[in-house]
């Protein structure tokens, strides 16, 4: 039946969770083996009265360059260099194993000397921001999925604009139909601020329902001043406001998912530059 079932290219199974675990385990095994080898080589160097910090230092430099390669690989996506998933797994494993290697190299948590402290600061910044980023990337997508709907980050301004236009049209029409400007006044006093841009950033970030409460509170407060027609308009405005609230939640969570890299990558650039400086200075002054 090979012809009858039209299968285009390679039809692979979807659920490959099992295979991913095996891949990760393999990377960890190789990573730990490599780390032990380096640690052993450094220890043996010390025993032969040579400098062990050279071994660990060059290993650290190679590691950092390998970690940075993950960014370069994104440019060369067409070349068969392996999947980004495998590279990311390697990045996590190598990045984690970098910390004990750093401790062995520096001989302690915090060095003396200005530029070495700058180097250590950059290292810690990169490492901690990486860990934070990993945690965020595990936690936030789930929360994003549980929100209503899906929106592309770059389209959020356009969506906000659309909602704002619709609400303002509703307000204008409501004022026109009812012959009273209550709706308009209240809108300008309260809801207009809300529709101008995404709000309640921190509340959405921490998962609090403050935005929805705020909306309901204002809507509830306004309802008593309105007649039937106006209330109908208000109901529509409320539903649009709740949609905007979901949009705000998307904005907050997706912003964080993009902004953590603003800490991780610049400090990584600094780290690598300082690492090369360190390499130069060590070779000029003590080797």
């Amino acid at each position: 039946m090979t012809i009858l079932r039209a299968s285009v290219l390679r039809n692979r199974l979807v659920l490959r969770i099992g295979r991913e675990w095996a891949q990760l385990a393999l990377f960890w095994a190789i990573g730990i083996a490599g780390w032990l080898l380096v640690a052993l080589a450094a220890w043996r160097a010390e025993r032969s009265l040579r400098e062990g910090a050279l071994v660990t230092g060059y290993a650290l430099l190679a590691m950092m360059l390998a970690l940075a390669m993950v960014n370069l690989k994104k440019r060369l996506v067409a070349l068969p260099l392996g999947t980004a998933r495998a590279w990311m797994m390697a990045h996590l494993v190598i990045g984690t194993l970098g910390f004990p290697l750093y401790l062995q190299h520096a001989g302690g948590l915090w060095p003396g000397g200005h530029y070495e402290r700058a180097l250590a600061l950059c290292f810690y910044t990169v490492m901690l921001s990486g860990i934070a980023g990993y945690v965020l990337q595990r936690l936030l997508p789930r929360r994003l999925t549980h929100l209503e709907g899906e929106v592309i980050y770059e389209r959020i301004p356009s969506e906000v604009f659309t909602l704002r236009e619709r609400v303002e049209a509703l307000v204008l029409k409501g004022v026109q139909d009812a012959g009273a400007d209550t709706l308009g006044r209240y809108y300008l006093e309260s809801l207009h601020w809300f529709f101008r841009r995404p709000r309640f950033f921190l509340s959405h970030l921490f998962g609090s329902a403050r935005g929805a409460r705020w909306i309901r509170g204002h809507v509830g407060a306004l309802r008593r001043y309105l007649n039937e027609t106006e209330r109908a308009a208000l109901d529509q405005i409320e539903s649009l406001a709740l949609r905007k609230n979901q949009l705000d939640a998307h904005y907050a969570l997706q912003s964080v998912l993009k902004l953590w890299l603003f800490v991780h990558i610049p400090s990584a650039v600094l780290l690598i530059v300082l690492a090369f400086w360190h390499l130069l200075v060590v070779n000029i002054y003590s080797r």
Partner: protein
Amino acid sequence: MSTGRRPGHDAAAYERPAQPYLCGRTSLWRKACWQGPGALGECGGAFECIPVRSGDRWECRRPKQAGGRCSAGPLPDGSCSHRHAPCAPVTGLRRLRARVSLVALLALVVVLIIGPDPTARTAVNSAALDAGRLSSVHAGFTREQGCAACHASHGKDAWGWFSAAFRSNDPSTGCVQCHGFAGETMRAHNAVPAKRGDAAEVSCVRCHTEHQGAEVKLARVRDQVCANCHEKSFSDFPAGHPQFAARYPYAKPGAINFDHAKHVNQYFADAKYARRSPKFAAAARTQCTACHEVESATREVRPKPYAEVCAGCHEAQIQKARLVLLEPERLTPAASVLLGMPKDADEADAGKRLAKLWDAMSRSGTEALGELVGGRDADARKRAAGLFDGLAVATAQSAGATWSSRKTLRPVDEDAPAGWNAGETSDGQALFYRPRGHADPVVRAWLEYLRTGTKGGDELRTQIAADALDQFLDKDTGPGACGTCHAAALRGAAPDKLESAWKYAASETRPFIRYSHAPHLELLDPAAGCRSCHELNASARYAKYHAASNPKPAAYESNFASMKKQTCAACHREGYVDSACQVCHSYHAGHELKLGFRQKDSKGAPNK
């Protein structure tokens, strides 16, 4: 937001995350215009379409994604009716991130260059090179010169500085300007151990790391560093350190035969001996400090000089022991050496030779004797002078003449004064010498002369000298009773090192172990005193080594029981007294600071 309704393929355009700029209206939370910014980041346009003339009417040409044809249509003059203010395009997140990286890098460079501590006089400021504070001992004198005081590559021009990275720049070459060591500087323990033929070069900075702060003591090195070579690494001294060597610290015999056990238990206790110096004996019996100089105690607690502690009992004994040089009928040991005849030589031969000697002596006195001492060079003459120092020519002549004519010398008092005497005593006639006291030069000269004679030369002369030496060193009959205390040292010393063989020398001299009595003395139990650690071993056969004619240091048994690790570990252990390696061991064979005073010449450079 997608809520399930089908938008149609016209409704949305592709999202282009690779584009560096976004329409600036998005930063105002408005809808982005469909044109998008230009390639250089300029606004894409203020108009929504470019109207097209069709016949006599203008038609809107707004694309479907932007809303399709507008209902209002273009203005009569042909321009678009939908205009909006030009935007200021915003940078996309990726490009912004790259800019942040660049700015951060520039900020870092600026901070490090303008950073504090600008003490170096180089093109690159030291904040970017600052590796940490120097230890206080080094910080002071290097302040003026800065980094270049130890790092030769500092202070050069940019290319010289950079190219130094490809050469060796060990700062240890600077350390040895001031720090000297007994032995090879760059080898482990300043010596190449016999076992490790491939001992690597060890530079100073391997163990002594500078730039760790002002309070750090550079000389102090962590135990782990020792463990790099000394494979038995341990953290607990009592449990992990190997047991001390079997006979530590009494493996090497001392130069002087002093049997502590016999003296303390017998000679100082028994009235028969003690009466020679009763007060001293009483004190010395219980207190080691009666003989040992405790005030200046370092590694060794030296015994006080002979005159203070030994003379009280032994001086009389020394002065009584005569050196019999010549006797008329018998071949004395000295005579056998002078004449070169073994002691069991034929009597007749011996007699003839002696007769010739008397004859020679009667004529030239000491000269005849001097001639018998071998050699005509200056050394031989000096030797001869030493051997017969104080012997008057007349005495020798008269003795020679007397014996030559078979007469008898006049009797001499038993308690004849010190020095050369020729006369008759209870033991018969003799030309003899009575020692003045301890370290009598004549007796000493004779012993050294005999000792050198035991080495080299032909076998007969060697044997004669050895026999004579045995006689001279005999405890009971040897002249000056020197052999009582100095026999083993003299026999064991090399012939060219006899000068130091007489003196007291510390027995434990290994350079890498260090111990000082001074800090321990205060902690002693007053009742036990030195015996807290130095215990007499009554069963040791001390005398065996000293009595042997060929003393072997390996067979030496000390009076004292060897020290065990437990003695030290009682206090030197975790939680009590510091038991780091460097407390008891030193790495450098010997260290001296080669500073001196340095004069500077007129240009400010130090004179060597």
